[in-house]
């Protein structure tokens, strides 16, 4: 389905400075049983957010009211593991529109782009600057400018550019998805398929 357009996002950020945050942490498998895309945000980081008796784990960042915003900042190799798009849905449904890390797992990154969550890959040094800024002031604002492909820490003015291919960038800016594109070239696909041996 087509999704929200993404242009410039200015928001405080939620810091999660752990490496290799895997999709089983983002959304454990036992919460994948829906047949509709609804309510996944409630179970985002379920086992880090809640104890076995459903009481809150006070020391987890999502349970700390001083940290909020539409940008999630994670450590290296964010989203490793399963192909479950539910992980990206959970991030989106919780209210995040952008995930920043120094490195993303491939499928998670793809899934984010396909549903309108912008994955922004920055250098390890810049990532540390973001964490420092957010830990100094939980309200520190980060600006993610998609047209300019730049991310800025407003309090320090530090800025870095980020990569995104121009096709995906146009999709994000316009809220288009790949199915819109593919539907328009079905004739070409059919011709291709007719030439296959198996």
């Amino acid at each position, binding site marked *: *389905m087509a999704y929200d357009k993404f242009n410039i996002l200015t928001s405080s950020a939620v810091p999660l*400075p*752990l*490496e*290799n945050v*895997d999709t*089983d*942490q983002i959304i*454990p*498998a*036992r919460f*994948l*049983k*829906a*047949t*509709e*895309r609804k309510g996944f945000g409630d179970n985002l980081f379920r*086992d880090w957010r809640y104890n*076995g008796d459903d009481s809150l784990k006070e020391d987890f960042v999502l349970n700390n009211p001083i940290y909020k915003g539409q940008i999630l900042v994670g*450590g*290296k*190799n964010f989203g*490793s*593991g*399963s*192909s*479950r*798009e*539910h992980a*990206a849905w959970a991030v989106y449904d919780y209210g995040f529109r952008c995930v920043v890390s120094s*490195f*993303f*797992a*491939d*499928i998670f990154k*793809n*899934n984010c782009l*396909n*549903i309108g969550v912008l994955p922004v890959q920055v250098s390890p040094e810049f990532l540390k600057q973001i964490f420092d800024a957010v830990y100094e002031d939980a309200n520190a604002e980060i600006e993610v400018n998609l047209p300019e492909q730049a991310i800025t820490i407003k309090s320090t003015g530090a800025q870095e550019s980020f990569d995104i*291919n*121009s*096709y*995906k960038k146009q999709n994000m800016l316009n809220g288009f*998805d*790949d*199915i819109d*594109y*593919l*539907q328009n*070239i*079905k004739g*070409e*696909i059919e011709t*291709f*398929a007719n030439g*296959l*041996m*198996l």
Partner: protein
Amino acid sequence: MSKSLFDKVWDSHVVRKIEDGPDVFFIDRHFIHEVTSPVAFLGLKNRGLNVMYPERTFATADHNTPTINQHLPVEDPLSANQLKALEDNSKEHGISHWGLGHEKNGIVHVVGPENGITFPGATIVCGDSHTSTHGAFGAIAFGIGTSEVEMVLSTQCIMQPKPKKMRINVNGALGKGVTPKDVALFIISKLTTSGATGYFVEYAGDVFENMTMEGRMTVCNLSIEMGARGGMIAPDDTTFEYLKDKPLSPKGDKWDEAVAYWKTLKTDADTVFDKELTFASSEIEPMITYGTNPGMGIGISNNIPSAEAVEGGVATYKKSLEYMGYGENDTMIGKKIDYVFLGSCTNGRIEDFRAFASIVKGKQKADHVTAWLVPGSHEVEDKIKEEGLLDIITDAGFVLRQPGCSACLAMNDDKVPAGKYAVSTSNRNFEGRQGPGSRTLLASPLVAAAAAVTGVVTDPRDLL
């Protein structure tokens, strides 16, 4: 220009190239299961779209199915609902459906190859990251998200930038007790879980050439655990022999024509890879993981590394060991375990059950160990019975369950309780993967069997 195996298969499936964008990439075979497909079908419905080539999609139920009493209605209403949705959606769109109870039912990456749906040079996707398994046949196979499942259903294409290519060479003979699983866990321990991100891997060298198809599937299955989108092995006589006469393999002249083409699927001699790594088989011993990602593995006789000795963040590493209840420099041999899981798309095939049986034969399951032995398909289950393996494992105090993904991801009732240790032949040891609070030690079927009969982590070479 010289091309790799990967280039040959990829380039022959590009419908259209988009400048500074992805390729429009045609998919030959598409597998779907109950967990990642319902929202895709809902998407089709909302847009008023049909399935373009239903004969290219195959549905099987595996992720949340129970592994006992499969003839009874599924108790969990949410799981039952997903299974029903898969059945209804398949029926509505004319897609072949091997649901619970069907004679061909089993784990998607087990039943695909054993029925000849998988073939060399194919492009294969599924909403499941272990789709990389099918790369064992010289196919480009990888996991996709649900949005992409919807794309494949509606247009038989997805939009993908071409990954970079890496070759991993392993040469030499494998030592006693060293299995394909150990080769894969060894490579992941060297590369880490992100070492191959952005790449598609080709495995080369005589270690892979000498492997059976099932061994190759285990290796390719685990490609995703080093971050690679997939891994592949050039098809050869071993591949063709495996596929010949499988129910859905091409027959007669079509077979000959196909094999002639498949024989061309090899990396040209002077191809340059974006990255190339070489390991000696003599470095590899039976492996076991001690942490919370598949890269945290060591040779079973080694000690857990200290935080300073590993790459990456010390805080993340210490959190991981704390979760596992282990200390830096601990030895793994002799650690008490509570559960053993033999199964999954990684190690749920007949050779895995043969390996397990070879160790437990004439011995008894340790009293305190709960063991789940779950075949990857009904076909595997039937072979276990035919070959007399069922008697061996039953005499040793084990029970054979029914096919499914089971405790690999614990979506059904096969959950390891909080704090308990499971030696598992599956593919992920993430926190809570096998049930909230569970602690997983990934290993081969031989290591799992040795642990099952001794109740502690044991070097299988001592029992062979």
